[in-house]
């Protein structure tokens, strides 16, 4: 028995265990998602995060220990962002043709993302701290954290809200677009990326490569615009 304890103590402290756990849990979550024919509710990110959180809680593992292994996966977010250039080159004619609708949707969508979050928070009687953290929630995590630093929002609360926006958008987007009878994958994908950054983009790539490409553009452009708009709109919205 003591050997098992020693083995656990050794393995649980090494990056190998938690890197492997991240991959295996994701493969299982993705298999469930495929088995349910990519049903929006069976979101692989949400399922994998839930399973891993239960495992960490059950084994009493601290997050830094887990992240020592998982960081190798996390690191790939950078190269994956760069890789979005490839579908952009491939679909360049489609992108060119839709430049005007895309930029119009970008401006309206970006303003809507910020104002709807802050005004709903006001309506629901949430405090100023919550409104500051909600404002940049549609932008990608790195940009949202930069904005939070400038506006003085709580960084951890901002990060939670960003991830929650990603997961809820990835779940809502397909049924919502079907209700709206929107069949244009460029419009659907662009909305997913603009609203729910990388997690929405991951969902769009699961559905259709053209949707994924437009989601990638939406994520990039809205990141930039949100960084510009939040400082401009906040004083006016908080009034």
């Amino acid at each position, binding site marked *: 028995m003591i050997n098992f304890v020693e083995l656990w103590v050794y393995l649980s402290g090494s990056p190998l265990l938690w890197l492997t756990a991240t991959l295996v849990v994701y493969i299982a979550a993705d298999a469930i998602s495929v088995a349910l024919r990519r049903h929006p509710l069976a979101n692989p990110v949400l399922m994998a995060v839930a399973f891993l959180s239960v495992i960490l809680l059950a084994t009493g593992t601290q997050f830094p220990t887990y992240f020592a292994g998982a960081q190798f996966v996390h690191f790939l977010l950078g190269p994956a962002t760069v890789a979005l250039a490839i579908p952009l080159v491939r679909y360049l004619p489609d992108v060119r043709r839709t430049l005007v609708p895309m930029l119009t949707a970008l401006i309206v969508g970006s303003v809507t993302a910020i104002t709807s979050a802050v005004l709903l928070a006001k309506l*629901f009687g949430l405090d100023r701290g919550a409104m500051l953290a909600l404002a940049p929630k549609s932008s990608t995590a790195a940009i949202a954290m*930069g904005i939070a630093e400038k506006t003085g929002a709580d960084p*951890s609360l901002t990060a939670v809200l960003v991830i929650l926006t990603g997961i809820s958008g990835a779940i809502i987007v397909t049924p919502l677009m079907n209700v709206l009878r929107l069949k244009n994958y460029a*419009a659907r994908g662009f*909305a997913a990326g603009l*609203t*729910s950054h990388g997690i929405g983009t991951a969902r769009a790539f699961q559905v259709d490569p053209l949707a994924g490409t437009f989601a990638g553009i939406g994520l990039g452009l809205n990141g930039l615009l949100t960084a510009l708009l939040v400082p401009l709109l906040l004083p006016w919205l908080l009034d």
Partner: protein
Amino acid sequence: MITALATLLVSQLAGEALVRLVSLPIPGPVVGMILLFVVMLTRTPLPPALGETADGLLRHLSLLFVPAGTGVIQHLDRFGTNAVRLVAVVVLATAITLAVTALVFEFAARWMRQ
């Protein structure tokens, strides 16, 4: 595949360096994406290995959010007594933004076609 991975990393590194040098309010990888895009515009057809590596990474983009997602769940206590209201605001604002963005895109595209 190694050349493709190196191409992605070199682009990211150039992006990170540029962001620091000019102090842009944009993440380095986003600038790296723009740089790679500009370079690849002159390269038709795309190098097949780069295409395959990019597709491989993007096919499993969901996986890459798992560590950050797991980390963020540890901070759920930040919601405190506001949990229900915060989740409601996020879900509603997300649905509104999705609908408005997609509808504006679609109507502008139809208007352009006329």
